[in-house]
């Protein structure tokens, strides 16, 4: 492995003493972090739940007991919050891809709107589910 591609520099890290935290950069890195969490934790959690359901009533009852524990509830709460964030910020990215709302003022405005909408969508879904 010593091709031209391998010698290219990698992207700078946003976290650390290199950049002052700003809404723009933080919302961007949170989009990646929520994406990684949804891939590594939330989707396997849903998969586990569906497989337990397929295995029968006893496996499903065990799964429900695990989910109603404090770590289980915590994983579901964070998963739902991150899903709402990644969903709404993803729509924001798709709007940018059409060339709209790219002015700095609008990037901040849609950023705050997205954060508020995430909290509302999360709270409503959690309430409707319980």
């Amino acid at each position: 492995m010593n091709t031209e591609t391998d010698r290219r520099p990698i992207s700078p890290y946003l976290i650390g003493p290199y950049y002052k935290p700003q809404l723009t950069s933080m919302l961007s890195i949170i989009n990646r972090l929520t994406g990684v969490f949804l891939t590594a934790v939330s989707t396997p959690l849903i998969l586990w739940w569906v497989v337990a359901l397929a295995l029968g009533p006893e496996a499903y009852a065990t799964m429900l007991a695990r989910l109603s524990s404090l770590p289980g509830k915590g994983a579901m709460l964070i998963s739902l919050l991150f899903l709402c964030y990644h969903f709404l910020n993803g729509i924001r990215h798709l709007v940018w891809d059409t060339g709209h709302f790219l002015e700095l003022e609008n990037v901040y405005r849609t950023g705050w709107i997205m954060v508020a909408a995430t909290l509302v969508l999360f709270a409503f879904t959690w309430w409707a589910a319980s």
Partner: protein
Amino acid sequence: MNGQDTAGHGGLGHWLWQRVSSLVLIPLTVWLLWAITRLAGADYASATQFFSHPFNAGLAILMTAVVAFHAQTGIQVICEDYIAQPWQSLLIWLTRIACFGGLVLMAWAILGIAGSSPP
């Protein structure tokens, strides 16, 4: 160079398909949020009944397929940005295998539930 594949590895294709999968995931995520409100804490009978409807079983498998693709491309971009070789390629391939395996497992489970409980 004849104008093809100038980004090295079909970078435009990756970019485009990531957006296409995002677009498809918008209505599917609305369905997922609705499904969560119906299935949270549901007992065995009502949970299996939910997937005995072809509409729900079909969307569950379709969404898993699109999510598997979307997650794989997303993780690949992050690996390419932050992780040096040879770990980069290894992680990308492990992610591909995990996403494909997850999809197969999900389809098997959903079809099993849908097949064993009449609507």
